[in-house]
């Protein structure tokens, strides 16, 4: 997993609540057996018209968001299925950070496993970021170590993150490697239980 320490990028606004994983990556693209190749299909039904050309009405197709790496959206982002293809698709589309008032649990977990930082902020602050990024090109700097978000002017806020997840992101640590260090504990646990079936 790539390390996440500090990130500066353009914010793209997706102003709707309950963006579900079926929207983030529709099911017809879940058949790949690789972890890659999902980016071009992210938000497929919204992003493309029937003939495959970009839908000019979909905000993320606006050229000013072409290089956006921070997505801001409404509450309950990532609801629905457990498909990790959703964070894979967003990451490949160029997003390193997602900001929303709330996230669905499994989606958030999946993001953290892939170095994609999810940040929960109050509705009012999300609205402010949404408004600023809708008006013009708007950049934010996110410092994970200090847990701060700043723009180039006066805006500055802090965010909460679980200390374990923070460490994993900063170090680029993989859960499996960490759990392999617990081999003795796992074996002890197993030996205490009767075998099933």
């Amino acid at each position, binding site marked *: 997993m790539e390390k996440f320490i500090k990130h500066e990028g353009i914010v793209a606004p997706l102003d*709707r*609540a*309950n963006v*579900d994983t*079926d*929207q983030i990556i*529709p*099911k*017809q693209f*879940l*058949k*790949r*057996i*690789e*972890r890659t190749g999902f980016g071009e299909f992210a938000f497929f*039904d919204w992003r493309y018209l029937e003939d495959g050309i970009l839908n000019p009405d979909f905000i993320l197709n606006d050229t000013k968001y072409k290089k956006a790496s921070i997505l801001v959206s*409404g*509450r*309950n982002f990532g*609801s*629905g*299925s*457990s*498909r*990790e*293809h959703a*964070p894979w698709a967003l990451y490949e589309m160029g997003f390193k950070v997602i900001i929303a008032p*709330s*996230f*669905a*649990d*499994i989606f958030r*977990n*999946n993001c953290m*496993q*892939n170095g994609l930082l999810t940040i929960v902020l109050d509705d009012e602050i999300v609205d402010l970021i949404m408004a600023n990024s809708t008006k013009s090109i708007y950049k934010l700097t996110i410092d994970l170590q200090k847990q701060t978000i700043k723009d180039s002017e006066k805006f500055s806020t802090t965010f909460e993150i*679980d*200390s*374990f997840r923070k460490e994993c992101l900063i170090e680029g640590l993989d*859960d*499996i490697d*960490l*759990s*392999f260090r*617990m081999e003795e*504990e*796992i074996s002890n*646990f*197993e030996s205490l*239980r009767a075998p*099933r*079936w």
Partner: protein
Amino acid sequence: MGLTMFDKIWRDHLVFESSGKPALIYIDLHLVHEVTSPQAFEGLRLQNRKVRRPELTISTVDHNIPTDDTRNDEIKDVIARQQVETLRKNCKDFGVTLYDIDSNAQGIVHVIGPEQGYTQPGMTIVCGDSHTSTHGAFGSLAFGIGTSEVEHVLATQTLRQNKPKTMQIDFVGELPLGVTAKDMILSTIGKIGTAGGTGYVIEYTGNAIRSLSMEGRMTICNMSIEAGARAGMIAPDDTTFKWMKGRKFVPSGESYEDSIKKWREYQSDKDAIFDTKIEINCSELEPYVSWGTNPGQVSKITDSIPYPETFEDPVDQESANRAMDYMGLKPGTNIEDIKIDRAFIGSCTNARLEDLRSAAEIVKGKKISSTVRAQVMPGSTLTKILAEKEGLDSIFIDAGFEWRNSGCSMCLGMNPDILIPGERCASTSNRNFEGRQGKGGRTHLVSPTMAAAAAIAGNFVDVRNWK
């Protein structure tokens, strides 16, 4: 202070815990399917790792297999075929049991787990699928995980988890005749919203829950994730043990009796404290129909499509406007006046034997509307065989339904079973998201009896008055 059922299961699976970090919990049963596992097995290969406990890992093909009679041939969709073949290879290479297309035990992963007797009280169960919450109906802690976590469980048989909060949803009062488990859960999601359970494990309690069959309990736990909760659970009781008895992987004879003693311990103590408690009065419930694009947007059958401005929250107003636009519906329309083009009886929510029986009861001796295409996809191959033994297939076929094979099918439309743009479907599945059943498709979530009645009438009708 007493413990909740969740607390007891958590305690019994704790491998390691240290403050400020997620706990490491042991996983008793890992269910695997073709869509969310290939990258996980590949991860093991790249690191030269094994599956730690292949005997606790069970696999089947369900998400993208066809449900028509071509399913035993080579799958036409090349990418889908590759995914199924990859699972076959992975199961063979890593020593994992696979219930393949030709097995009677094949079926939707959340149908076959309980059906074969793998799912048991007190267990921890995971699967790379959000509807793993289904298995909580047996008093187990069961939840969906992503592919990285699938790899983690394959490699270590454990998972890192922050301890969730607990919520009790207490169903008080008696469930009126003709109102089903599906209506109980749809009304609940309508009340608490699609994020109401985020961060929680829900325990469903109350007399109405106790009176439900295991199939009904599975329907309720299945849709916990639609309320945002990763897991839903119901304490096991005699209904549970009776349902389990004689199933292939359930202990038999003396060890069945011993197991029951152990299973009975998985109950919340009388003085257990939940972080949140919600009460639902069953006597006020009716059959429900979803009208929007998330499972919290529901109305009673006798009601109409709500006016968005009646929602207090501006976000809900905006969501309702957007949903009605997508669904091609206008506020104030009576639910009973909504005409359908398709009916789908299937999915891990409602494709078990009892679901099929209840729908067959409605359609028996009747014909589907000439403008409706209706399909039944039994939840597993075994379910299909048992249903056919009872003659349910003829009842459906005589009424004009297509009687298909098992799989996730039109619940998520990964296989060829999809809606075409603008088609409106009465569906017994769990999600009505935009495009879920096919781009531009319009999904209305209902119970099996409501879907069956709508298929006959051509529009939604109140099954309580069905003759």
